């Protein structure tokens, strides 16, 4: 029943001489929300950057091992990095609307492909905003600057912008870290409903958030995957002492 989408095998990542991920092994199933928790510097964000190769942009970045996305080795020689990044959409911790209108932010990725058909773009904008739960709030001001939206709206705009790419995976890096509880709730609601069409990888500093919405949870620490299991298992009877200590708030 559970189909594997991403397979990570003995994967390590280095920034220059510093090892930031150490021999990670994990599978990500289709249509699940995988929560990734762990203290600062545990390698959570680096792991996301490795999945869509944004780490390529950092000088001195180096990898070992394998990551297969839909059976394709993404560090293989014939990989189309641009296509890979469209397949694994990414939402960052701080909402970063580009200095464009709401409309142009959403269609940014679509226009990159050379599609400028007005009707299709309109449709993409409506669908994506609808899915991200933002349509009713902004439908009357699509052509005003995206920078005027509130923080929570901006983050939902960023999710909509990723959805417009028609990705298969959505990776979110602490998407609600700067948001108020209500905005956080709205985003968690959208993620729950997005699960049926997408595979979601959610890095979060907020362990309760993982408990609330992740199907499975992975605990990272100092570049190592300490454990990964069904969320209730991780939270109620973790198999590793470090996970237990972290969840009890003893560090992190």
């Amino acid at each position: 029943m559970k189909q594997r989408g991403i397979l990570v095998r003995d994967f390590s990542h280095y920034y220059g001489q510093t090892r930031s991920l150490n021999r990670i092994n994990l599978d990500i199933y289709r249509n699940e929300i995988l929560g990734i928790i762990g203290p600062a510097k545990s390698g959570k964000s680096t792991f996301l950057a490795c999945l869509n190769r944004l780490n390529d942009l950092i000088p001195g970045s180096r990898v070992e091992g394998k990551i297969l996305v839909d059976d394709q080795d993404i560090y293989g020689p014939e990989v189309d990095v641009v296509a890979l990044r469209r397949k694994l959409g990414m939402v960052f911790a701080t909402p970063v609307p580009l200095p464009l209108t709401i409309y142009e932010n959403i269609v940014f990725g679509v226009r990159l492909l050379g599609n400028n058909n007005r009707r299709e773009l309109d449709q993409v904008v409506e669908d994506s905003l609808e899915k991200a739960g933002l349509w009713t709030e902004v439908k009357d001001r699509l052509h005003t600057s995206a920078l005027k939206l509130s923080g929570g709206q901006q983050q939902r705009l960023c999710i909509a912008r990723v959805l417009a790419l028609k990705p298969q995976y959505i990776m979110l890096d602490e998407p609600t870290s700067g948001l108020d509880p209500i905005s956080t709730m709205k985003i968690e609601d959208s993620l729950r409903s997005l699960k049926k069409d997408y595979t979601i990888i959610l890095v979060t500093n907020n362990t309760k958030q993982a408990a609330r919405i992740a199907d499975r949870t992975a605990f990272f620490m100092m570049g190592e995957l300490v454990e990964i299991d069904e969320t209730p298992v991780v939270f109620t009877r973790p198999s590793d002492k470090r996970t237990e200590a972290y969840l009890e708030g003893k560090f992190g």
Partner: protein
Amino acid sequence: MGGQLRLQPRTEQKLVQLFMYLMTSIAVLVLVFILVVILRNGLPQLSLEFLTHNPADMGREGGILSTIVATIFLTFIALLVATPLGVGTAIYLTEYTVESRVTRIIRFGAECLAGIPSIIFGLFGFILFVNKLRFGWSILSGGLTLAFMVLPTIIRTSEEAIKAVPSAYRLVSFSLGSTRWQTVTRVVLPSAIPGIVTGVILSIGRSIGETAAVIFTAGSALRMPNSLFSSSRTMSVHFYILAKEGVSMPKAYGTAAVLVISILVINIVTYYLMEKYIKRKS
């Protein structure tokens, strides 16, 4: 020990404020003084005829139309060449390379270029464009010489403007599946445009006002230029010759007034347009 000499914080604050105020006033006063002198002597010379007639009798009579046209052409050519070169260099240095010995050498070179006196550029232009390439004293030679002269300014200001674009924009752009070039053209440059334009305006000002580099390369013919290869005289060269040779001080002041006013107008108009652009974007 020092404590006893200390002023009351409030008195000290007042004194510092007064001092800053004085410094600022002096800077503004110098500008006002220059403007007043030029405009008081120059404005009475201005008339429609002055702007629409060519100089006659070596500039003693007539207007300055041909020198206005020459100035515009020269500046236009200079920026046509220097803007793509400068912005291109800045893009290369900021987006396509990592900081290394090579980029430092390029940057150092550009800065040295900025420190070279303009008359040396004039000499360089004379040797290369006028003689070696046989463009003669011409609008083309003058324009190319000016292009090299303003190049460092454009590189520097463009580079600063590009660097000021938040790196998060680039990350987002890449994460949405754009290539480096798409990131540069669709995200980085639109955000950097106000800064780049500032550099271009500065360069326009410098080109219009430049005398030494131009007198060697564009020549000083008074007739209306009719091709890229016409020798011609810019407003600033015209002013220099009128004043230095004692041809006509009133006409010299008239020319100076036109120069100063046009630079002012260019600055005001572009900053106004820039404001609108920035407002529209945010």
